[in-house]
C-alpha cells in the first residue's frame, strides 16, 4: 500500500527519519525494548516460524541438470542437436548438442526426491530440503543476476534481502550485528559488495562483513593495526574514558539531541563487539567431531566449512541474517574457475565446487538439526541462474548460462522438507510448471520470518520500494 512519507507510522520510523536518521542506537535499544516487551519485533505481521536465515549463495550459475533437476530425457537425446532451428542465442555461444548430466542421479530418503552423485552428503539431508525447480531470472549476466537474486532488481543500488530483514526486524543480539556476510576467501562475488549492500536504506542496515580466514581480524578496524604497538587494552580504556567524558559534556550542553546519545552508546557497543566478535569466530572450543564434520582441516573444503560453522555460531548468538558465499568473482579459467561458472569444463569446476558445497552445507544442516536450531533457522541455497542442457564448446564439456531455469532450495525454519515446487521442461531448459522468479522465494522467506512482503517498504526517489518490487507470492506448498 502506498503510504505518505510525511506520516510517521512507527516509533522506529520517527527516530530514523528525524533529520535523516538520527539515533540509530536509540532506535536499536528501542527495538530491543519492544521486542522484549511484546515478544515480537517491529515489522512482524504474523507469527514467525523462523527466527534467523542462513543463505548460501553459489555465484557463477549452478547447473540444475547436474545437481537437483533430474532429466532422463536428456540422456535419451544425448548428442542430438539441442536447437535444430538455430534460433536460440545463448550468453556466449550458439547451442551445441544435448548433454546429459555429468553425474548419475539417484532417489534419496523417504521423499524419494532425486539428487545427483555430485552431492552424496547433502543427499542424506534431502528429507529436510524443499526444492524450487522452476526458478527463473530476468538476466543471464552474472552481475545483474546476482543483484536480482539478492535484491530483487537487476540494476545495482537496491537493498539486499538481509538489509530488508534487518530493516524490518531489527537486531536481536545485544553485542553482534543483525546482518552478517561471510564472503568466499578467494574474493568478492560478481558485482562486488553491492550484493549485500543496503542500497538506498540507511547504512545501519548494511551487512557487516566478517572475515573467516584464520589469523585475520574478523571485522574491519575491530582493533588497531599491529603497527601501533603503543595502543593496547589499557590505553584504549583511558582513551575511551576521556572521549566519553568529552562526549557526555558535549551532550549535557545540548540536551535532547538523540544523535549525541546514540554516539555515546555506539562506542559502548563497539567495545562489546571487540569482545564478542573474536569470541564468536574462535572455533577452538568446537569439538573434534565438529571440525571433522565441516571438513575444516581440508585445504580445499575447509574455508567454506569455516564459513558454514561460523554461520551456525552467529545464529546461535542471535544474528538475524547470515549470507555465505560459495565462490568468488569469475576470472578467465586457469586451473579451476573461482566460482560455478563452468563454460569449458563443467566436470572439473562443478566437481571442485560440488565437493566443497556438499560438505559444508550438509554439515550445517546436520549440525543445526542436532542442536535443535533447524526448526527456527531458514537455510536457503541459491545461485543467480542455471545452465543450459546443451553442451558448450567443441567437446561439449561445459555449459552456457541459462536464465530460463534453475533450482533453489530451502530447509528448516518452517519449510516442509522432502517437497518440491514447479518443474522445468523435459530437458531442463525452461521452467514450465509454476515458473517463478526470486520474488516468490523472497516473499516466502519473509513470510517465514513473520513479515508480509507487501508491507515491508521504504520510500526512495518517488517510489515506495519493496524487496519484491510489485511481484511476489508466498509459495505455500513448501511451508509446513
Amino acid at each position, binding site marked *: 500500500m502506498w503510504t505518505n512519507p510525511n506520516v510517521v507510522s512507527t516509533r522506529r520510523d520517527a527516530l530514523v527519519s528525524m533529520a535523516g536518521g538520527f539515533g*540509530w542506537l536509540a532506535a536499536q535499544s528501542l527495538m530491543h525494548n519492544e521486542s522484549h516487551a511484546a515478544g515480537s519485533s517491529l515489522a512482524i505481521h504474523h507469527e514467525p516460524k523462523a527466527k534467523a536465515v542462513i543463505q548460501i549463495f553459489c555465484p557463477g550459475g549452478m547447473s540444475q541438470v547436474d545437481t537437483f533437476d533430474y532429466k532422463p530425457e536428456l540422456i535419451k537425446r544425448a548428442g542430438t542437436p539441442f536447437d535444430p532451428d538455430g534460433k536460440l542465442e545463448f550468453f556466449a555461444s550458439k547451442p551445441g548438442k544435448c548433454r546429459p548430466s555429468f553425474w548419475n542421479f539417484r532417489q534419496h530418503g523417504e521423499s524419494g526426491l532425486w539428487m545427483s552423485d555430485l552431492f552424496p552428503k547433502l543427499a542424506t539431508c534431502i528429507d529436510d530440503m524443499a526444492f524450487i525447480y522452476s526458478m527463473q531470472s530476468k538476466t543471464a*549476466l552474472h552481475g545483474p543476476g546476482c543483484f536480482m537474486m539478492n535484491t530483487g532488481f537487476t540494476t545495482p543500488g537496491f537493498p539486499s534481502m538481509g538489509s530488508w530483514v534487518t530493516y524490518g526486524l531489527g537486531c536481536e543480539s545485544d553485542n553482534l550485528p543483525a546482518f552478517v556476510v561471510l564472503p568466499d576467501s578467494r574474493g568478492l562475488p560478481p558485482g562486488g559488495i553491492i550484493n549485500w549492500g543496503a542500497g538506498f536504506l540507511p547504512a545501519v542496515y548494511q551487512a557487516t562483513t566478517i572475515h573467516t580466514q584464520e589469523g585475520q581480524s574478523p571485522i574491519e578496524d575491530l582493533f588497531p593495526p599491529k603497527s601501533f604497538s603503543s595502543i593496547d587494552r589499557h590505553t584504549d580504556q583511558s582513551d575511551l574514558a576521556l572521549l566519553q567524558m568529552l562526549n557526555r559534556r558535549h551532550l549535557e550542553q545540548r540536551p535532547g539531541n538523540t544523535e549525541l546519545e546514540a554516539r555515546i552508546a555506539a562506542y559502548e557497543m563497539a567495545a562489546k563487539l571487540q569482545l564478542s566478535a573474536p569470541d564468536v569466530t574462535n572455533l577452538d572450543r568446537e569439538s573434534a567431531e565438529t571440525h571433522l564434520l565441516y571438513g575444516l582441516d581440508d585445504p580445499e573444503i575447509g574455508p567454506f566449512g569455516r564459513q558454514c560453522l561460523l554461520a551456525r555460531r552467529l545464529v546461535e548468538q542471535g544474528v538475524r541474517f547470515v549470507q555465505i558465499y560459495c565462490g568468488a568473482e569469475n576470472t578467465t579459467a586457469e586451473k579451476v574457475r573461482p566460482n560455478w561458472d563452468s563454460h569449458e569444463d563443467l566436470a572439473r569446476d562443478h566437481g571442485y565446487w560440488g565437493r566443497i558445497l556438499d560438505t559444508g552445507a550438509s554439515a550445517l544442516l546436520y549440525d543445526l538439526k542436532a542442536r535443535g536450531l533447524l526448526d527456527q533457522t531458514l537455510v536457503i541455497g541459491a545461485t543467480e541462474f542455471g545452465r543450459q542442457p546443451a553442451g558448450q564448446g567443441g567437446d561439449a564439456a561445459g555449459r552456457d548460462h541459462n536464465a530460463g531455469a534453475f533450482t533453489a532450495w530451502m530447509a528448516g525454519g518452517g519449510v516442509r522438507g522432502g517437497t518440491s515446487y514447479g518443474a522445468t521442461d523435459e530437458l531442463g531448459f525452461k521452467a514450465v510448471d509454476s515458473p517463478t522468479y526470486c520474488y516468490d522465494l523472497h516473499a516466502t522467506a519473509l513470510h517465514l520470518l513473520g513479515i508480509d512482503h507487501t508491507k515491508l517498504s521504504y520510500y526512495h526517489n518517488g517510489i515506495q520500494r519493496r524487496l519484491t518490487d510489485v511481484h511476489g507470492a508466498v509459495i505455500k506448498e513448501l511451508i509446513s
Partner: protein
Amino acid sequence: MNPSKRLPLTCAFFLAAVFNFDPCCLLAEEGAESGQPIDFVKQVAPILEHHCIRCHSVDVSKGDVSFTTSVQMESQSLLVPGDPDSSHLLDVVQSIDGQPPEMPKEGSPLSASEVEVLYRWIKEGADWPVGVELRERSKADGSWWSLQPIATVVPPESSESNPIDRFVFSKLAEHGLRPSRQADRGTLIRRIYFDLIGLPPSPDDVRTFVGATDEHAYESLVDRLLASKDFGQRWARHWLDIAHYADTHGFERDQRRDNAWRYRDYVIRSFNHDKPYDQFIREQIAGDVLSPDDPEAVIATGFLAAGPFDFVGQVETQSSSLRRAARAADLDDMLTQVMTSTIGMTVNCARCHDHKLDPITQSEYYELTAIFAGLKRADRDTSATERKVFDAETSRLKSAMDGVSLKLAKMKASHIDLADVVGGGNGYGTGKKGHGIDVRSGKIQPSFVGDLENIKAGEYSRSQLPLIDGVFVPASGETQISSTGLVAHDLPKHSGKGWDGIRNGPVNSQFSTALGSIDFASPGHSMIGLHANAGITFDLGALRKSAGFADVCLFTTTVGYGGQPPTPSADFWILVDGELQSHAKLGRNDTVSVALEITPDKQFLTLVSTDGGDGYSMDQISYGDPRLADKNPKVIDAATIEQIVALEQELQRLDQEFKSLVQPAVFYGIVAEQPPETKVLVRGNPETPGESVNPGTLRFGGARVQFGPAEMSDSERRIALANWITDPSNPLTARVIVNRLWHWHFGRGIVGTPSDFGFGGERPSHPELLDWLAAELLRSKWSLKHIHRLIVTAKTYQMTSRIDAFQPDADRSQQKDQTQDARSIDVDNRLLWRMNTSRLPAESIRDAVLSITGKLNSQMDGPGYRDFDYEEAYAPIYTYKTADEPELWRRSIYRYIVRTTPQQFLLTLDCPDPANLTPRRSVTTTALQSLALFNNEFMLLQSRYFAERLEREAASQDAQIELAFQLAFGRSVSADEREAAKSLMNQYGLMHLCRVLFNASEFVNVD
C-alpha cells in the same frame, strides 16, 4: 441484498455463462426511470477510474478482474446490463449487513450517490460507448502544486531586511513560535566553513572573526568563502551525488574510466565561477552540440555518462535479447538521472505503465528515452579541432620520418628485407612485425587467424602492396604464380587447406622460429612465415626500382621447418619466373641455405610451401633472412657519409617534434549517432515493443509536447530537451535547484524530497518562500552564488541549533515555554525555529582530519588519487591501502571512485553508493563507525601527525592542549578538560589525546 450472493470477485468469472445479455429488453425498461439517462463518460467512468482501475486493469487485474473495457466486465458477470441485482459489481462496493464493503480494498468506499449512479447506469443498460477504455488516473493531475507557474510573491511586511527571514519568521508567528537567538560567532564560523568549503576554520580565522568589530564581518566572511576555490571542491560533491558519478563502470567487470575526472573538474569549476545554472544544465545535456568548439561545454556532457555501465550486458554477450535488456536499463538510468536532477520528476515510474501518482503517461516516458536513444557512453575528445590538428601533425611527421628513413636505409643498407616487404614495408624496416597477407585475397591481415575457410586452390590474387605481385594457394600440378599468367609445373598433391596468413614473422601457433643455431625472430634477423599451403610472388622489377639495383642481384635465405616433428613433412619451393630454383622436403632439424643470382631481365620471385601430402598440421615453413641484394654493392664515399649524418640529424629532429606532440584531451562522456526508432515497450519489456513514438517530453496532462519527427537528429533532440528544461517558464527547474540549495544548507529542503516534486514527494513547508527564491534565481540570471549568499546571510541560517535556545529579551520562564511549545508544535523543526545540527559527511571528516594535521594536499584538478592497488583481471581487483603519502592526502572530491569495491572507511561513514542517485544522504550512527574512527590506520597515523604538529607549534603542554582544542573544535579548552587531557597525555602521550579529539562528537558534528 441476499448475503449468499456475495461472492469473492475471483469466483465471479465462473458465473459468466449463466447470464445472457439482451439489449432489447433493457431498452424497453429505459423509460421507467425519470430524469436524464446516466452519461458513462461523465458520470460512471470517473467513479471506476477513481476507485477500481488501479487494481483491476489489463496490466494489473487483481483477482483476474479487469475494468478496462465493458466486454471484460461483462465476461466476468460483474456487469449484467439492465439487471443491477445480478450485477456482482454492486454487491462488492456497498455495505452489507453492517460489514464494510468488500471493495475497494485500498482507499475510501464509494459514496451512496456513487453507488446510486452505478445502479442506475446498469439498470439503464450499462451503455459503454465504443472505444472508451478506462485508464487509471494518476493521483495528481496538471493542477499539482509544483506544475503551476512560479507565483509572484511579495515577502510579508516586517522589519527584517532579508526576505527569507520575513517568510520564515512570519510563518513561525502563525504557529505561535519565535525564532531562536543568533548562534555565537565561534559556532557560526565553524558552521559556515564546513557548509561552504567543507573544511574547518583555522584558529587564526576563528580569533579574527570572533574579535571582529566590523558589523559586516559575517557578510565579508561569507563573500570570502564563496570566492574561495574550496567552495567548488565542497559543492561539486553535492552535484556528483545526484549524477551518481564514479571512475569505474560498475557491474560485473567494473573496468576503469581513467578520463572521467574531467567532468568532475568541470563541475568544480562551474560552481567556483558561478556559471549561470541554466547554462550549467544546458551544457550537461547538450554542450557538445551547442558549443562544439568549447572543450568546457563538451566535457560537461560527462554528466550523461556519469552513471554505471553494464559492459558485459551491452557489449560482451552474444545474446541480442540480453543486450536489448541492458540497453533499456542503461537508457532508463540516463533518463532518470537527467529528469530527477533537473526537474524533480520521477519519470522512471512510467517505464512499465502510466505513472500511478503523477500525470506522466508511459508513452511520454518513451518519448523522453528517444532523446537519448542515439547516445552511447565512451571516451571522447574534448575538442574535435584539437584532434584534427593532432592527427594532421602526426601524419605529416610520420611521413617525413618515413621519407628520411628510406633515404638513410638505401644509403646504409645494401639489401632489401623481403620479410619487411611482406609486413607492408619498403624493405628497409618500415613494415609491421607480425602483419601478414591473406592468401585467399591478397588483403592485409594484421592479426592471427586460424583455419582458413573458403579456400580456392589455384586462384591467384593480386596483392595490395606495391612490391608484391600476388599470392595463391597452389593447385596440384599446374598453378598460376603471377599476374601475367606464369605457371608453375609439377607441384605435388596436398590437402588444399590453409592456416593463418603469409607473415612478417612466425605464423599463428608456430612451434619455433629458430633454424639451426639462429632464432630468426631475434633482433637483427627477419623471417617470412609461410604455412602450407601457400605461395607468394614478389615483383622483382618494382623491388629493383625501389632499391636502385641496376645489375645482377643476389637472393639469399635460410629455409627451414617451424613445426615440431623431425620427420620431413612439408615442402618448400623457390621459383624465378616460374622456373624451379630450389626445393626440399623439411622436418624440424632440416635447413637449406639458398643463394640465387638473378639477372635484370627476371620479373618474378616466387616462394611456396606445401604440406607434403600428409596433412597440413604444423607445416610451418620459415624463410629466414630473405634478402635481395646488389651483387656489386656501392662503395660508401665521404660525401655519402656526410649526407648520412645530416639525414640522421634530421630524423632526430623530426622524432623530437613527434614526441613533443601533446595528446588531445580525452574525457569519459557520450558519443552520438543517428538515433534508432523508439518504441513503447509494453510493460517495460524490451521483447514486447509497441507503438513507435517521436522525441518529446512531459505534458503533465496537457497537450502532447513533441520535439520533432522520428528523423530528428540526436543534437536537435538534446537541444530541444535542454531548452525545455531551462525555459524560464518551466516552473520546476528553478524550484528544484533552489530547494536543493536549501536542503544542502539546512539539512532538509523546503520540499523534503529534493528529487521528487510529484505526489509521492513531500509538500513544501514554505511554498511562498520556495516560489520567491525560484523567482529570485531567475531575476539574478540563474546565479547560484546569489542564492547561497541570501540563504547563509539570513538570520534564519544564523540561529543557534540548541533545542533549549531562547530569545535574548525573554526571561527564563518564557524560554522554557518557548522550547516546550516549539517541541510540541514542531518537533522536526520543519518551520525552522532553530538551525538544524549536522553530522559531517564522510568526505568532510577525512578532509578536516587532514586539514587539522596540516597534511592536506591542496592540489586541485587532474586525475584522481588512487588509494588502492590495482590488479588487472577479468573483473579487476581493487585492494585498498592506507593513505599515507602526500598524493593520497588530496581532498576527498579527488578520490578515484570504484563502484563495486567502495572505500570501506568512507562507506562506513555514510558515503553513498554511486549506483544510486543520492539527492539526500542518510546519516547513521553505528558501532562500526566508532571502530573506524577509533582504530582505522589512517586515523591513527593522522593522530600521530596531529601530535607532531602540536609539538612543533606549541612549546608547553598547556599550549599544546589549547592548540589541539582550537584546531579540532574551534574553541578554547576548559579547565577540567585540560586536566583530563593532561592526565591522558602524561600517561600515554599526546597522540592519544589527538585520537580522542578526532573521535569526539564535537569534532564530527556541527552546531
